[in-house]
């Protein structure tokens, strides 16, 4: 479960810290373990994701997931990132029975092992659900 890549992102988070400007900010918590993430999204022309900035606290899985998400989303289009969100969600909710699409997921495929631990799936999904929520709010 603790892939080297996850530990790397946890120890050296990418794009961490809340930045201006942003279109929407959301705060999501995982009440069972106290993981939390605050996330800001800035969109540009043509549905481009200009920046995803975040801050938070919690276990390595929840915080590494936010870091990987930052890398995978910044610079892509909203449509592209939504397909990553969908694939990641499908992987996480697959109880370890789902084959991950590495082409879509990139580094996020390292979280495949988490799906076998139902108690930790929410940790991995926290940042991704926050991102989805922030997108909806920025486009409102």
């Amino acid at each position, binding site marked *: *479960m603790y892939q080297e890549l996850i530990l790397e992102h946890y120890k050296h988070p990418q794009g961490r810290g809340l930045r201006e400007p942003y279109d929407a900010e959301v705060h999501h918590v995982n009440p069972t373990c*106290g993981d939390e993430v605050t996330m800001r999204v800035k969109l540009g022309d043509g549905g481009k994701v200009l920046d995803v900035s975040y801050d938070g606290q919690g276990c390595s899985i929840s915080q590494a997931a936010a870091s990987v998400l930052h890398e995978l989303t910044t610079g892509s289009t909203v449509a592209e990132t939504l397909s990553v969100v969908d694939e990641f969600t499908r992987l996480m909710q697959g109880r370890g029975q789902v084959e991950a699409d590495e082409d879509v997921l990139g580094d996020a495929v390292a979280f495949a092992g988490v799906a076998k631990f139902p108690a930790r799936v929410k940790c991995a999904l926290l940042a991704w659900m926050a991102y989805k929520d922030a997108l909806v709010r920025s486009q409102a």
Partner: protein
Amino acid sequence: MNGAAPFDVERIRKDFPILSRELPGGRPLVYLDSGNSSQKPTQVIETMREHLAQHYGNVGRALHALGSESTEAYEGARDKIAAFIGAPSRDEVIFTKNASESINLVAYAFGNPVNTDERFKVGPGDEIVISEMEHHSNIVPWQLLAQRTGATLRWFPVTDEGRLDIDRLDELVNERTKIVSIVHQSNVLGTVNSESPILARVREVGALMMLDASQSVPHQPVDVAELGVDFVAFTGHKMVGPSGIGVLWGRKELLDAMPPFLGGGEMIEAVWMDHSTYAPVPHKFEAGTPPIVEAVGLGAAVDYLTSIGMEEIKRHEKELTGYALEALQEIPGLRIIGPRTVVARGGTVSFTLEGIHPHDVGQILDDVYGIAVRVGHHCARPLHLRFGIPATTRASFYLYNTTAEIDALVRGLHHVQKVFG
């Protein structure tokens, strides 16, 4: 207990079949989560199986042979529990489904318009006192009571060492206080609270006092008459009994004055279309078909604990706790949340590891070493807020744990630090 064999943890472990199972990947099980729920000895498992296989019927209402055998076993369990906790009367032992239900039962007797007894009247201006070290089960029922009645909920603070701070006892417990409900042994800190100074003040102001003894009754001799409080709640699954069965002990005179909690079958004396009269205690508080086999199992659990001896169990856990406190404090970056000595303290040790989230600690301990600990806020969120931490890792010991298992925990924690170092 007189004539009991000397305490032998290896012999005790053989009574608990689950302790010798292997986890996937060939990991041995190191179970350090008894504060969450304890494992069950063969004696309890077999008693329950035997009851289901040979004696099962509904209790209190079936006139046939099985009904009377079942009733005898169910009421026999009540006798055993009454004796185990030193209850002056067996009728003071009420079966509930867990300690939470026991506390709710008492909380609902307060501020209830059908209850005319002065001691249970609660309204705006009245006060309920709990503490910062409570489990949610001894917080939320009182919050709900305060919301229903407009009463004020007040809290004993907790010191940095993890002890109950009773410096302001005389101000916190006063003539407006209706009930004080505190934990006997903290499920996070391990602290064992002394009820006597609080009880003396409670009596002075004419209030009532309840103890949440979920973490003490399984681990030390508890005599409710000696404690002198009004209500005591505990649960079966933490004391080698099954889940689904809890106990409320209350002083008979108070239980008689309280209104029923749940209405239904077997809690009545007579039912008319416009009103009902109720059965005497304990059955007034046991509506519907109760957890029969679970009560019988709890009776067997009490027999088992008595055969080992509660003093012996307490002594064994004290040894384990002293050993663990010493070994854990040698780990760099480990901070114990709670008393660091074995004085007035049980075998529950919670801690943080600098820079590593408890969920990661617990996951690696389990994945790599098969060590079961609890991680999170342990249903005591206000206490964690008090210490400014979101969560802790908790190891909790019982009669079947060994120092070798604590060694395994220490090795596991060193490995966790290596992974995240």
